[in-house]
């Protein structure tokens, strides 16, 4: 336990902050502390968590991606059109098409970065503009409302009425999110490929000397994020029951902030799935709490920005200084 606290200082402190904020909200608002609200939060956060675990893999491998959210919008349009061609499809074909398109768009980023040695932030800002520009150009900004029925029907996998009259629901987005989280966790902690990704992000030159295939690392990292962006895009269309070209525009920065909040490092080699999920949840809970407290939605961004700033300032080395029992150094020091 103690060594878990020590090696997972960011996750533990995030959890502490989430518990503290939840405690304050439970006391100050009538509706926060209910299972119903907790499940609502999960449903609302699913798409962002799917994006976040994808982005986590890219950050671990030492890259960054600005383009994934608009790529998800491109995937939504592409999938809607492709589903039209095949005459409707279903969840399986939808996820396959969306996932493949996502991987393709991610692979374009990896190709630019690996083949032409463009640094990832520049490459993905470019593709961000290209993807979004193409999307707006071809759709002329028009949304799609006539989606297949299977895509817009809510899928409730489990529901139960609580004694207090609220409903707890587990919907399809939550299931998909959980699968994406588990798959990412297996990839980065349990497979040799995942450990190579960490090593590559941590010390690219060291990884190269071990003969790790650098190009493969870029394609796996950006491909994985592409896959998550594709799946997340389809789930977002399902959740919103429409496809709006600029619906996800700007989402990349929210997700990036949440992932960094969760302990991933810009520069590579560091980050965990748990931290990433907690980072997204912290932001959702805060937003939800502010909502329930009746704070003006116009103030949300400002408050969330401030929370991210404080949390990131406190995180990493400083959090260890705040919690003295965490900071005992290795035996040899």
């Amino acid at each position, binding site marked *: 336990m103690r060594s878990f606290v020590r090696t997972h200082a960011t996750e533990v402190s995030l959890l502490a902050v989430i518990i503290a904020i939840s405690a304050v909200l439970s006391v100050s608002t009538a509706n926060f502390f209910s299972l119903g609200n907790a499940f609502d939060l999960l449903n609302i956060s699913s798409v962002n968590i799917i994006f976040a675990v994808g982005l986590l893999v890219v950050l671990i491998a030492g890259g960054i991606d600005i383009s994934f959210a608009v790529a998800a919008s491109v995937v939504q349009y592409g999938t809607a059109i492709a589903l039209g061609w095949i005459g409707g499809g279903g969840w399986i074909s939808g996820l396959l098409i969306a996932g493949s398109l996502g991987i393709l768009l991610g692979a374009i980023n990896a190709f630019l970065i690996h083949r032409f040695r463009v640094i990832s932030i520049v490459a993905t800002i470019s593709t961000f503009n290209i993807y979004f520009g193409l999307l707006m150009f071809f759709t002329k900004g028009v949304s799609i409302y006539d989606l297949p029925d299977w895509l817009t029907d809510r899928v409730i996998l489990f529901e139960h009425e609580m004694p207090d009259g609220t409903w707890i629901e587990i919907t399809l987005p939550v299931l998909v999110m959980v699968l994406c989280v588990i798959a990412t966790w297996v990839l980065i902690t349990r497979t*040799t490929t*995942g*450990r190579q990704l960490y090593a590559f992000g941590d010390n690219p030159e060291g990884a190269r000397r071990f*003969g790790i295939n650098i190009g493969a690392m870029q394609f796996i990292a950006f491909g994985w994020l592409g896959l998550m962006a594709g799946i997340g895009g389809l789930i977002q269309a399902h959740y919103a029951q429409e496809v709006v070209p600029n619906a996800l525009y700007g989402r990349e920065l929210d997700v990036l902030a949440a992932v960094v909040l969760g302990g991933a490092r810009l520069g590579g*080699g560091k980050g965990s799935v748990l931290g990433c999920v907690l980072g997204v949840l912290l932001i959702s809970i805060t937003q939800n709490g502010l909502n329930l407290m009746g704070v003006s939605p116009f103030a949300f961004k400002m408050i969330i920005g401030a929370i991210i700033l404080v949390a990131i300032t406190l995180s990493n080395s400083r959090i260890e200084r705040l919690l003295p029992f965490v900071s005992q150094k290795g*035996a*040899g020091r």
Partner: protein
Amino acid sequence: MHQLATAGGGEKPLLALRDINMTFGGVRALKNVSFDVRPGEVHCLAGENGCGKSTLIKIITGVYRPADGASIEFDGETYSHMSPVTAQDRGIQVIWQDLALFPEMSVAENIAFQTVLGRWPKLVDYGRMRQIATDALARLGVTLDVDLPLKEYAIAQRQIVAIARALVGEARLVFMDEPTASLTQSETDHLLDIVRGLSASGVAVVFVSHRLAEVLEISSRITVLRDGALVGVYPAAGMTQSRITELMTGKTFDQQVRAKFRDGQPVVLDVKGLSRPGQFEDISLSVRRGETLGITGLLGAGRTELALTLFGMLKPASGTIALEGKPVRFSSNRDAIAAGVAYLSEDRLSLGLIQPQSIADNLVISSLDKILSGGLLSEDRKRSLVARWIADLGVKIGLQQDAISTLSGGNQQRVAIAKWLATDPKLLILDAPTVGVDVGARAGIFDIVARLAETGLAIILISDEVPEVYFNADRVLHMAQGRIVGSYDPRSASLAEIEGAVYA
């Protein structure tokens, strides 16, 4: 000892290189070099920077392919060239100077990293990794918590992790490139013990170090390279540091104590009771016009912190600093520069010089006010200022506009000194001025230091190599754990006496 027994000769070599030639873009980096290593011996590869040591290591480990006609014989098999895979399979391992470790990953993963390699993904076996790591560390007689991220450990332990990693691959021949460069004396001693242990267990070690004292202590034989050619192979027994230096440079260095009596000169810097808790305590010292004050001591003795305080970058908790009799209180190093203090940084590569920028821009960066003309920078003034200092310090350059990174270590250091001289300092602090500078070029730098002192500059020379301060300073202070614990006059004290005190 076992190591001496195996080094006794007459035995078939583990590695034998013949007729190694290597050319880079028309420059011959290696000329007909032969090199051999016996099983279980500690063999030192010595030579100045650029003599071909690293090229040779890279040929043996398969990074480079030598010119046709080469023969590399390893344990009975002959190759015309190596490949990294063959080299690793045959048990040839390198511990690079930068270690190539993964600080965020656990000690176990760093040591057993090869278990996560492979063409196709598989599941990671953390239990096996932990076992491999524990075993490798046990072989070295070291206990570390293998689950902690490597970044929790200091550089000395990381070095050990790098060695442990090399042992995992059934190493038979291990190259160590400057393994002690960032270690303290006791850490170095521990490392040398580990090297002896490896040698005793039959692993041959090729040791590359610029610290000749430890080269003589650890190795049984020394191969010296100069300008890409083999000078010779010598038994370590009976060798001296000055003899190795001569072989490496092809020049004779007759080191003499330069210390002179300076008591009649006015005091430039007077420090009384200077303290910064945890870094240095109660430091009192003075430097006169034309005097060179040497400060030596182990890494972590507080030398650099003291220097940075005199340069205004750190603030003392108590004590006074007076320059030419006037008490000063620097709120930043800009104040210190204006008051006539110059500080040549310990880390020239990353802090002292801006590598991609030109020689000229680097030289004038601290004295931009001197090349103003009507409030704007004048190219003409810059050019003449640069030309003056380049000539004065004998820096060998192509064009003023060339990037500083194109110069050798010694010439870069001259530019760094010129940069500070251009600010017209009264006090020049040189912090480890010869790190990364070849033996041959070091003498040139100290000639400059001596000449500057003659012009009346007060100089503080900081180095962890006792001979440097002994031969080049007028007085030597010994710092340990933040305090001045000894003061010596090189004219009356012996080098051995000071070294004994410092390395005790």
